[in-house]
């Protein structure tokens, strides 16, 4: 098997878009994990990022803007033998889909989520997203953004998200490692991916990121199991931006706690009419 095994339809992203790097890393991670397209389910909402599953091979559920996570979690519970990944933009996952993101962290179903954070609404042509910086002017934020930007890493860590990492679409190898680690980690794995948008974000460019990123794992000092130091790392932004596994813990995944899944994937359970007849007679 090689990356060709995952080749999907032709992309419709702008040349130079950070999404290409992410797509690349996703394929590479799956390849290295030897997942066949038949073994993966890919979920997404709507946006540029959310088109990714079409450019791959796998089972695909490209649903509504902001609503990838509920569908992804449920599908995992219906068949927890398959690997589930979800993809979305910063608007998709943190704006429209903010509530699902928050509660998916709590629910801790064993799926892996990549948020392609270009800090802008790409597909709808450049309005501010929840992560757009203060002061940035757009066609809607004509006098500059005045809402404080979301810190999604801090949000996730504050709720003891099982696995929290940050990658960069321009560091494909590193991102590949993060995705593999996320998939391997039981429970809800969240990877925030910094992604340049060449058409609408002229601040957080590829070069801008390149100048700032560093790998937290490099000096061996960061302990991703430490809640407070993870939160401290999540606050770091500006001249230096940390990449890597920022936080993780070993909360048991929903899938392992749910009584209904004890006998294996739901989808494989055989229907037992006599059981139901018994329930009925109880009334």
């Amino acid at each position, binding site marked *: 098997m090689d990356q060709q095994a995952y080749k999907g339809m032709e992309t419709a992203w702008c040349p130079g878009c950070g999404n290409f790097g992410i797509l690349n890393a996703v394929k590479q991670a799956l390849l290295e994990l030897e997942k066949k397209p038949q073994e993966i389910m890919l979920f997404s909402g709507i946006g540029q990022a959310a088109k990714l599953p079409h450019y791959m091979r796998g089972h695909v559920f490209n649903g*509504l803007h902001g609503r990838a*996570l*509920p569908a992804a979690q*449920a599908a995992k519970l219906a*068949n927890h033998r398959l690997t589930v990944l979800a993809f979305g933009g910063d608007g998709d996952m943190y704006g429209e889909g903010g509530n*699902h993101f928050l509660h998916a962290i709590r629910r801790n179903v064993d799926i892996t989520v990549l948020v392609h954070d270009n800090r802008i609404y790409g597909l709808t042509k450049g309005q501010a997203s929840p992560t757009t910086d203060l002061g940035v002017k757009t066609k809607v934020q004509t006098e500059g953004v005045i809402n404080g930007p979301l810190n999604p890493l801090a949000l996730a860590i504050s709720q003891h998200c099982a696995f929290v990492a940050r990658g960069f679409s321009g560091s494909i190898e590193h991102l590949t490692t993060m995705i593999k680690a996320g998939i391997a980690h039981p429970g809800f794995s969240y990877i925030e991916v910094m992604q340049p948008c060449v058409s609408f974000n002229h601040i957080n460019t590829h070069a801008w990121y390149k100048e700032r990123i560093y790998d937290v794992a490099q000096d061996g000092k960061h302990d991703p199991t430490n809640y407070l130091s993870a939160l401290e790392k999540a606050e770091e932004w500006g001249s230096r931006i940390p990449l890597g596994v920022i936080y993780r813990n070993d909360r048991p995944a929903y899938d392992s706690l749910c009584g209904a899944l004890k006998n294996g994937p739901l989808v494989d359970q055989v*229907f037992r*009419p006599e*059981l139901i007849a018994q329930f009925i007679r109880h009334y």
Partner: protein
Amino acid sequence: MASEAFDVNMLIGGQAGQGMQTSGQLLAKSLLKLGFYISTLQSFHSRIRGGHNYYQIRLASTPINCMTRSVDVLLAFDENTLWEHQGELHADSLSIFNSEKIKVDHGKLKGRLLELSMSQVYPEAVTDEIFTNVVYVGVLAGLLNCPEAEVESVIGETFNKGAGVLEKNVAGYRAGRKFVQDAKVSNPRLTNVHPEKQERSLVLHGNEAIALGALAAGCRFYTAYPMTPASTILETMAHYMSQAQVVVEQAEDEIAALNMVLGASFAGVRAMTGTSGGGFSLMVEAVSLAGMLEIPAVIALAMRPGPATGLPTRTEQGDLEFAIHAGHGEFARVLLSPGTHAECFYQTTHAFNLADRYHVPVLVLTDQYLSDWYTRVPEFKMEQVTRDYGPMVEGKADYARYALTDNGVSPRMVPGRGEGLVVVDSDEHTQGGHLTEDLAVREKMVKKRLQKIEGLKREYFMPEVMGTGQDTLVMCWGSNRGVVADVVAHFQQLGKAVTWMHFKQVWPLPEERLRPLLSAYRHLVMVENNATGQFARVLQGETGVTIAQRILKYDGKPFLFEDLLTALEKLLV
């Protein structure tokens, strides 16, 4: 034990938290154990304590289809209850209350009174009010002349906690019973009330029937956000979670709930959600998604009076047109509208079959009345339940989720079974499921999705019709079946040429087949629990047949027998 025909209506009222729900349930349980046909109506305020709530129990010698207004026995836990229900009493009615707590001017009260001094009857219940319930159960059981031992056995089952508690309860029950026997209250309506043992019957409310229907259909995933009056479906499903291998998950909101249903269904298991109007409003975008993705989904919509929060604990049929058109864009859907507990059960199993065979969202439309309607019904038979999962394939490598077919339905495959890949997309898509902006493909896909409506119309559940003659047709849908059936039967017995018709499916409507059915009658009457006659409008719009008369009720209560009787009397002169 031979028995005369009887029909007794009891009302137990008081404040939330006073325990008259316990009395009611205890009594209902006992009566049911004894084999009576009973039916109950609960009127609750949207609060946990206080307010005026009541519990009505009707018992009769034949199956009960609806509730009546006229009250034979009124058991008042507080004074307010006495006054609130005077209008429902007749000369023979018996009002029972604790005269130590309620002091009233007797002259102003209708019917006969049975006053009880609790300190004399059962002093324990003055010390601890918790024992009041069981005393009243004794009073009512005594009045009805129920076999003593059997009620005691129910009490035994209910209070098996600590030995002392059970004993005090039994003693209280006996005290109440003794009191009423000593009082020698006689009432022709209350004598010879003896049940015929009913074999193989169930006692449940509409939501339990729906939950059992879901389980019988092989539902493996139920998710919802709590909302009255749908919450008890969620609770019933949750009860069977591990036993039946069904994942039951409380969603963070209704949006998540329906999107989860679609995710689970996509992955290959039968999935369902339930809610009321407000929650359904939030699901609407995902209803449209189900239409586009062509993923089976079953939604129980238990209606309550709107708009907005409205009257959370009351009943209405006000969301019909909304449900018919909910969701942007054009796509097929089905609305089933069970009228009995059996229909709640069987229509829910059908809902899953239709959803799987046409890959559309199917709504099971009920209302608070039917949801909470607690009664005895014949046992549901698993042998009568079919599970038809629709066209399925084990996907070859070239599997195309939206392959064009003769009837608009493309075979499904379960992701992971076979070589194929299942690709679904909320954008307009190719047969393979990938997004496209090819406008010729768009046209084909629109036709494919809408074509299913034809198939669905062919499989329409034709309405149930009872009566002869071509004069007056009284129509209804959903929960009004019972009251319409009983009231029309009453007129039929009086020799009137009147027929009733119950629609257990309200969408889509096969206008060609329905038109002659309706046109056959001279007078068409529609009975609905809403203010604008929604189904009348829909049926008229689809068939072109004018429905001139509408009997509507929209104060949050269901039609009682007398309500409809009076309204129909005016029309049938």
